């Protein structure tokens, strides 16, 4: 009997230990007092490679150098898993202290974050020092909830070699949709195509903006895509694939086959992309990569821009220190470092030269300036993920001629309103 009591006790003890280990430091994502004493802050951020991860770790060191009492505990996952993990952590009340936030996700996650207005004015950080479109993107219900480290307008990447070989004038600031169509037709010789059409809604949006000035979300913050302007632009885009045939059939809605970059592979000669991919593209491509702003339509050369920043969660026990850390992460030193390393096109205007100088991209500065000047924030709605998923699934069918533009836009609108 004595033995069995002992086993019971041991089993119970083991269970307690296990449970304690499972629950960890539940509810608190930071430890230590908030009066200048040593503090450990968790920082959750995405990264796609070791190089990228090391850049973030370097930024974390910068924080500790400036504020020796703050230690950063860095946690990371690839970009796509990041949002799922963040959601589950937030749901279980274990959100990390500092998180990365992408502008188009602000409506979805903004309510997890602390408004930074008071902190910013105390620390003397001015929103005007950053690119306005991304600062606005990182607001939630009119309040700044994150400070940006990078920004990028969606722009046209083109294959310089192919344009030269075809005797075409290279796309430049001020080029038009007609010139685009002409170039695409001249360049297309199946299986090589002039343009790479993709099923993501962000790929269509710049064309809608340039043709009509309409965005995906209206002034009331509601999704508004089932209207004549979107219909016209989506039909025009569909025709690129199924009527004009200047773009190859769209492969699949999912990443694994879509990630095979048809532009970098040399199978298509123009493609919309962000400057965040430019340095990588120039390293990987076997041809010269040029960039140009969106070709101007009836409404001008308009595009969207998005970027990311850092915010402090409501869950954080030491928001003062967390903001101190964020202020270092978006400081001129940190953003210059990220720009110089080619990790980000800095959102802090004064540091943008680091990106051009560190990566030999001075040639694209006029294009970047022109595109940024004509960029509107990538405004979304809280259920944006439903919009993106529904749109891209149906877009594959519609673009390939197995569904109507009406189906595409009405289904998307329906998802976004439910």
């Amino acid at each position, binding site marked *: 009997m004595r033995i069995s009591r002992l086993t019971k006790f041991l*089993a119970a003890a083991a269970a307690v230990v296990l449970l304690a280990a499972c629950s960890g430091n539940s509810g608190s994502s930071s430890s230590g007092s908030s009066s200048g004493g040593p503090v450990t802050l968790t920082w959750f951020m995405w990264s796609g490679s070791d190089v990228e991860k090391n850049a973030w770790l370097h930024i974390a060191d910068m924080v500790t150098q400036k504020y020796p009492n703050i230690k950063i505990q860095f946690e990371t996952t690839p970009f796509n898993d990041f949002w799922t993990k963040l959601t589950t952590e937030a749901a279980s009340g274990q959100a990390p202290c500092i998180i990365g936030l992408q502008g188009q996700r602000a409506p979805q996650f903004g309510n997890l974050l602390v408004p930074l207005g008071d902190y910013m004015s105390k620390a003397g950080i001015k929103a005007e020092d950053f690119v306005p479109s991304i600062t606005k993107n990182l607001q939630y219900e009119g309040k700044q909830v994150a400070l940006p480290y990078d920004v990028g307008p969606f722009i046209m990447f083109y294959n310089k070699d192919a344009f030269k070989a075809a005797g075409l004038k290279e796309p430049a600031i001020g080029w038009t949709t007609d010139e685009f169509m002409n170039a695409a037709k001249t360049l297309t010789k199946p*299986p090589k195509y002039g343009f790479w059409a993709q099923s993501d809604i962000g790929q269509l949006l710049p064309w809608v903006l340039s043709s009509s000035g309409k965005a995906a979300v209206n002034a009331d913050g509601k999704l508004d895509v089932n209207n004549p302007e979107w219909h016209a632009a989506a039909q025009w885009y569909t025709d690129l694939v199924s009527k004009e045939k200047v773009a190859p059939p769209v*492969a699949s809605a999912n990443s694994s086959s879509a990630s095979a970059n048809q532009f970098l592979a040399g199978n298509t000669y123009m493609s919309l992309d962000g400057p965040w991919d430019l340095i990588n593209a120039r390293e990987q491509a076997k041809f010269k990569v040029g960039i140009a702003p969106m070709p101007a339509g009836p409404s001008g050369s308009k595009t969207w821009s998005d970027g990311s920043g850092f915010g402090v969660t409501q869950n954080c026990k030491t928001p003062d220190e967390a903001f101190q850390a964020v202020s270092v992460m978006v400081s001129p030193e940190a953003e210059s470092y990220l720009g110089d390393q080619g990790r980000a096109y800095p959102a802090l205007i004064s540091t943008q030269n680091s990106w051009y100088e560190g990566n030999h991209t001075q040639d694209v500065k006029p294009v970047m300036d022109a595109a940024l000047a004509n960029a509107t924030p990538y405004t979304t709605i809280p259920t944006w993920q439903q919009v993106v998923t529904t749109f891209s699934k149906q877009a594959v069918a519609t673009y390939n001629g*197995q569904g109507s533009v009406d189906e595409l836009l009405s289904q998307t609108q329906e998802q976004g309103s439910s």
Partner: protein
Amino acid sequence: MTVLPADVTAAAATATQARRGRRGDGKAATGFMAPSMLGLLAFTAFPIVASLIIGFYNWPVIGSHTFIGLKNYENLLTSKEFHTAILNTFVFVLLYVPLNIVISLGLAVWIGSKGIRLRGLYRTIFFIPAVTPVVANAAIFSLILSPNGLIDSLMQTWFGVQAPNFLGSKTWAMPAVVMLSIWQGFGYNMLVFSAALDAVPTSLTEAAAIDGAGTVARFFRIVLPLITPSIFFAVVLTLISSFQVFTQAYVLTGGGPGNATTTMVVYLYEQGFQFYKMGLASAVAWVLFIIILVITVFQFIGQKRWVHYDQ
């Protein structure tokens, strides 16, 4: 042989001791079992109960939960998308299960036939896709099937025509998912059938041969009936897993184009983990569970007609 009363008492005493001893073992056994029991409770029993409860709620991941009774089930039954998902799942099952069984049985018979050398090697090779991660297989398949992929390039060089856009076409997407699933799944069933075929006594087939039965007759009249228990086992498991098909469709086509490859679990994943409607997703899981349960019960009832357990 007579049993003395003293022996009886002694035996009884030992029995009591043994029972006591067993009782002691029982406690130790509980201790040893505790870790896996806790695991089972925490990671299987608890989620099952939780999903049943969550299914009656409007349960966003972040935000407040409200009890809505059977509303989730009502929404599902009236949702066109969910009907499509059920239909797609049944189409997948009807295409995949028979093909899988025929191919794996065919290969098992071929490997087991006389005159085949290096059986072990073939078995290993055919089993490799089954132990390769689905995602890896899917990535390779999408490289093969995409425009400018292997098939497309070969067709362009050989015939000068472009191959169909398999993954981007409503017609071809589901067959592509089925193809990948067969590639992924035939190895396991082949191994099961292979073992069952090896267990068929040669004396029976030889006797039949002497009686004048040909190869085909021997296979269909002797071998096949003898391995029906293994076929039953394979069919039940393959059916259950094919109703739960997810990774192949998700990685290859993302459930598209349109909703052409949105199976029930892809739909569940979308609702639960992309749209964060956990209540609705839990309801989908229970509908799926009930469908699988009913079909499996019918299979067990039906097996009496065709499965032969006696030797």
